[in-house]
């Protein structure tokens, strides 16, 4: 890492602060000590000067000088300007004789007491500051040594403590690297969550959980999309292959007029099928995306009546009929939604019912109100849907073998689209037990009050609803 680690920065900072404090402490103690010693020296000088003023006149000068001289004070006795006894100048020095350290005049004046006796003898007492200086220097030296040891000890302690205290950060960093490298199940799971780092680790876990969830969802939706694309290309290739092959036969085959027309008709039919498939695929793609629907109140009774009329016209071509069964006697509140999309749903369900209805039979359409929702039931008299297939048929491109074998030209997307539209309106489409005990019944549920466009479908009705789109 290029930037110094947090641990190192904290350690250095604390060492620096401590060093500054210790230096300040040393300075203060040295200053105070120096002042104290200086005062002490001057008090002794004063005391000795007072004593000197009382010495008898005829004292032995050398003896006198000795008496007044000790380690810190030296006496020089002079008479008429002549030095007669005691230590000669230079009186003190840190080094050997002949070395006079630079004491300025003030300092010399402060540390000199001159007592003039009546007989003209002058006793000059000089205080020695250098011992004091040595003491102070010693003190400072000791203080520096102790400080150094202290700082080293503190630095070491700090390092150990910081290493322990910040170890969870290292763990977190290592965990993050491993998660990034693919160990997506890995979590920190801190033993304590009430500490700062424990809290951080918990947040870290929560974040990874949510990222992992997002990645998982993205992967799942990508897998769904891949499957859808594979299915869609499969479904598109069949009519494309049929169109291409039939056109080739038109070029290379040896046909009479009737055969050529039959082949051309095949091309037309297959291209229509391809077109319908493309439309349905586009619908699916649109429903996959964020749904931005028109929202208006829709009278389902009127919409159903219209669709039944349209469906009946279409059914008459295959010899079936579509009729509206009982309508509720009470007023049906409107549902909110996209009229075209809901009409499309009903159309799909009706077409599907007509497709599988035996010739001459009737497709029954009923509408009833059940609590907060309207239920449209569409039943035919066809072969019905086996119970085990009743959810599967809503998957995309699922056509039951029986339907495939008859090649009924459906895209295999109609039911899937219908269900997606219903769910985007907060409702659902289900294949339920047939009303009359035979045939097939599909029910479209739509809530009257549609709170949102999400997947807010109702799961309270039948037992087999737990199937994701």
């Amino acid at each position: 890492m290029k930037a110094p680690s947090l641990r190192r920065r904290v350690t250095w900072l604390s060492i620096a602060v401590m060093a500054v404090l210790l230096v300040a402490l040393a300075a203060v103690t040295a200053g105070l000590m120096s002042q104290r010693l200086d005062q002490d020296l001057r008090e002794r000088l004063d005391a000795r000067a007072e004593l000197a003023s009382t010495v008898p006149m005829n004292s032995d000068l050398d003896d006198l000088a000795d008496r007044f001289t000790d380690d810190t004070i030296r006496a020089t006795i002079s008479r008429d300007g002549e030095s007669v006894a005691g230590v000669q100048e230079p009186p003190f020095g840190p080094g050997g004789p002949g070395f006079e350290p630079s004491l300025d005049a003030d300092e010399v004046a402060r540390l000199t007491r001159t007592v003039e006796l009546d007989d003209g003898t002058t006793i000059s007492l000089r205080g020695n500051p250098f011992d004091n200086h040595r003491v102070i220097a010693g003190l400072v030296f000791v203080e520096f040594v102790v400080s150094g040891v202290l700082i080293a000890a503190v630095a070491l302690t700090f390092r150990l403590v910081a290493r322990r205290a910040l170890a969870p950060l290292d763990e977190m960093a290592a965990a993050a690297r491993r998660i990034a490298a693919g160990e997506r199940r890995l979590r920190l799971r801190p033993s304590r969550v009430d500490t700062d780092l424990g809290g951080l680790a918990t947040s870290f876990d929560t974040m990874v959980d949510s990222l992992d969830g997002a990645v998982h969802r993205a992967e799942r939706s990508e897998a769904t999309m891949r499957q859808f694309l594979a299915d869609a290309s499969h479904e598109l290739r069949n009519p494309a292959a049929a169109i291409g092959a039939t056109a080739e036969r038109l070029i290379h085959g040896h046909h009479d007029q009737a055969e050529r027309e039959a082949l051309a008709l095949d091309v037309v039919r297959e291209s229509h099928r391809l077109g319908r498939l493309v439309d349905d695929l586009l619908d699916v793609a649109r429903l996959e995306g964020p749904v931005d629907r028109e929202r208006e109140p829709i009278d389902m009774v009127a919409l159903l009546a219209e669709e039944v009329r349209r469906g009946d016209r279409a059914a008459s071509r295959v010899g079936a009929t579509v009729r509206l069964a009982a309508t509720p006697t009470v007023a049906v509140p409107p549902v909110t939604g996209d009229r075209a999309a809901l009409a499309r749903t009903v159309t799909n369900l009706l077409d599907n019912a007509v497709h599988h209805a035996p010739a001459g039979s009737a497709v029954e359409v009923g509408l009833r109100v059940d609590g907060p929702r309207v239920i449209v039931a569409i039943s035919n008299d066809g072969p019905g849907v086996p119970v085990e297939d009743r959810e599967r048929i809503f998957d995309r491109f699922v056509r039951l073998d029986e339907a495939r074998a008859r090649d009924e030209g459906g895209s295999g997307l109609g039911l899937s689209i219908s269900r997606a539209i219903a769910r985007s309106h907060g409702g659902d489409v289900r294949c339920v037990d047939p009303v009359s005990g035979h045939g097939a019944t599909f029910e479209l549920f739509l809530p009257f009050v549609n709170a949102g466009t999400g997947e807010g479908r109702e799961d309270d009705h039948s037992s087999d609803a737990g199937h994701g789109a």
Partner: protein
Amino acid sequence: MEPPRILVVEDEDTLRRAMADSLTDEGYVVGAFADGRDLDAMVAFSADLAVLDVMVPGRDGFQIAAALRARRDVPVLFVTARDALDDRLTGFGVGADDYVVKPVALVELAARARAILRRTGHLHIDTLTVGDLTVHGEEPRVVRRGAEIDVTATEWRLLLHLARNRGRTLSKTQLLTHVWGYDAFDPNLVEVHISALRRKLEAHGPRVISTVRGVGYRLDAVDPDPGAGDNGAGDPS
């Protein structure tokens, strides 16, 4: 020699019809099935090649292939809309000899079928003899009245297609798409190559490729009469 027998299983009616017709035109005996249910009939057909769609009702193409090959070693060509790697690997895993993804051109399908049949020894492409003209079926060799004629590969393919349809008029479009494929080419290509072929062929005998005005071209048999041509004198036969 018996014409090779090809089994076709394809659930899309239109496509199955087109494939069966096309292969029949190529001279094969075709047995077509819409689903995988009637395995006994498929086995009874005793095909030399099985052309199978994968997604068919009843029994999928892979299962059909496995079942057929369990009884008799038959080459399999999968024609399917599923092109995921897994599907291809499954296909080759059950012993596919070839695997093509829809949409596939019928001429390509026929070419692949021919290649497999030749490889498995079920098809001996004989040289086609049309009157005094011999067109080699496997390499660009053309012989007329004993004389080797130097043709390009394209001219040979054109002549081979005319020879297979001898006596039948083929339009420029039919010749163009068969020889050059379905992507747009200039129909004049056909004219240019036909006239080159005529020049080379007519150096050894009378005209064999005739123009049917407004329709196309036709290859007719001309009796190998050495006396009829100028250079017939040196013919060893």
